[in-house]
């Protein structure tokens, strides 16, 4: 449908006002909210993600597209709740206790939302228990942990341990990331995945929840 294609194209160009306007038009024309979300907004972000992976565009372009995605979501969110449209999954994210760096975590959150996930962002300096409490409370499928200091990375191991202790290991997966973090560290602490950058983190989360995408 050309209107949905127009939404996706405007999103790719980062035209947030145009995306909001087109979503309103689509709703007025009785296009279903799930179709607007999946075939307009998420399709557009998917194309952006692929162009980013191919290095045709760069982080600022992705973030401008994300802003356009937000603009569309603001219009459509109430109608999605009413239609009972499930998200791709629910993810709890945060920067671990002792660490205040949050840009990496913020970028992951933005891209996860762009991929159709619900994100519970706990902020920074988050104790291990709070991650696990939030995952249980919100029924999250994934906990995403960010650390930018080697001295705070051990909190990630604490989270993995708590997930197991509370019997959530089968239901809640843990993904880790941040400049000093590595695939080897993720394996060492028993995390389920490692994301080497924000875009990769989204791919790994998709794989963890088996989301279509």
């Amino acid at each position, binding site marked *: 449908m050309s209107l949905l294609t127009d939404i996706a194209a405007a999103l790719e160009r*980062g035209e947030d006002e145009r995306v909001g306007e087109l979503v309103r038009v689509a709703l007025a024309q009785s296009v279903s909210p799930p179709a607007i979300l999946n075939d307009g907004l998420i399709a557009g972000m998917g194309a952006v993600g692929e162009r980013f992976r191919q290095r045709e565009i*760069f*982080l*600022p*372009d992705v*973030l*401008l597209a*994300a*802003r356009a995605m*937000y603009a569309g979501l603001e219009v459509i969110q109430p109608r999605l709740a009413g239609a009972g449209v499930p998200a791709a999954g629910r993810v709890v994210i945060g920067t671990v206790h*002792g*660490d*205040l*760096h*949050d*840009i990496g975590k*913020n*970028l992951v959150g*933005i891209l996860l939302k762009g991929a159709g996930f619900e994100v519970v962002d706990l902020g920074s300096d988050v104790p291990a228990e709070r991650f696990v409490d939030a995952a249980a409370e919100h029924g999250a499928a994934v906990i995403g942990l960010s650390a930018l*200091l*080697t*001295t*705070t990375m051990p909190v990630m191991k604490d989270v993995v341990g708590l997930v197991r202790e509370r019997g959530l290991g089968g239901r809640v997966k843990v993904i880790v990331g941040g*400049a*000093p973090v*590595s695939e080897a560290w993720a394996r060492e602490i028993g995390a389920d995945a490692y994301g080497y950058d924000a875009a990769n983190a989204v791919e790994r989360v998709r794989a963890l929840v088996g989301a279509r995408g």
Partner: protein
Amino acid sequence: MRERIAWAAAESAPARAEALRLQGLPSGQAPSSRIGALLDAALAEYLQAAEPRALVGEIGREDFAEVYGGEGRNAPATPLDAVYPKAERLALFVATVGEPLTRRIRDLFGQHHPAPAAMLDAVASAAADGLAERLAARFAGDDDGTRALAYSPGYCGWHVSGQRRLFARLRPEEIGVTLNASFLMQPLKSVSGVLVLGPGRIHRFAPDYPFCGECADRPCRARIAAAVGG
């Protein structure tokens, strides 16, 4: 010698290319007009909000050895192990671009303006790194035969816990920079370390230490090449 230094925001604004590099643009690639516009806006915000300042304190070799030893968590061998004993002069430093920029970045993310937020973050990070380079150039002065480079805890085998003794020695709380229990500096856009002054050759090392394999882009190579020609 212990000295407080302050710069006007305009003096400390980073090079455009460095901010773009931090946003993932390949070196030498001209940005699109809209990325250029984001950068222009971020630089304008930087000029409004930045409060760049530093504290520098000269230190003798033996006293630096004590600081550098830190909590005993450095890598078994590091480039600085070989570099600093050859130094003519050493000075500890802490520099920051100030707290208002960090707040502004957070505000922009909170207002769902991720592109301007991330660009301002890149500008602030590039500016903070640039302060260390400005301090190094200042420390070297006009002597063509010597070069000063900055080395920082958390890099090249110098464990980040080394911040504790550095802070205890230099007391940068005086310029509003503090250290938390995880050795995180606040304001976030702050840098610290040691300035090492000597003939250019003392700064050359081969990046074949075990930790070099974990380093994403080895910025040491470009910095050292620019400073000492190799």
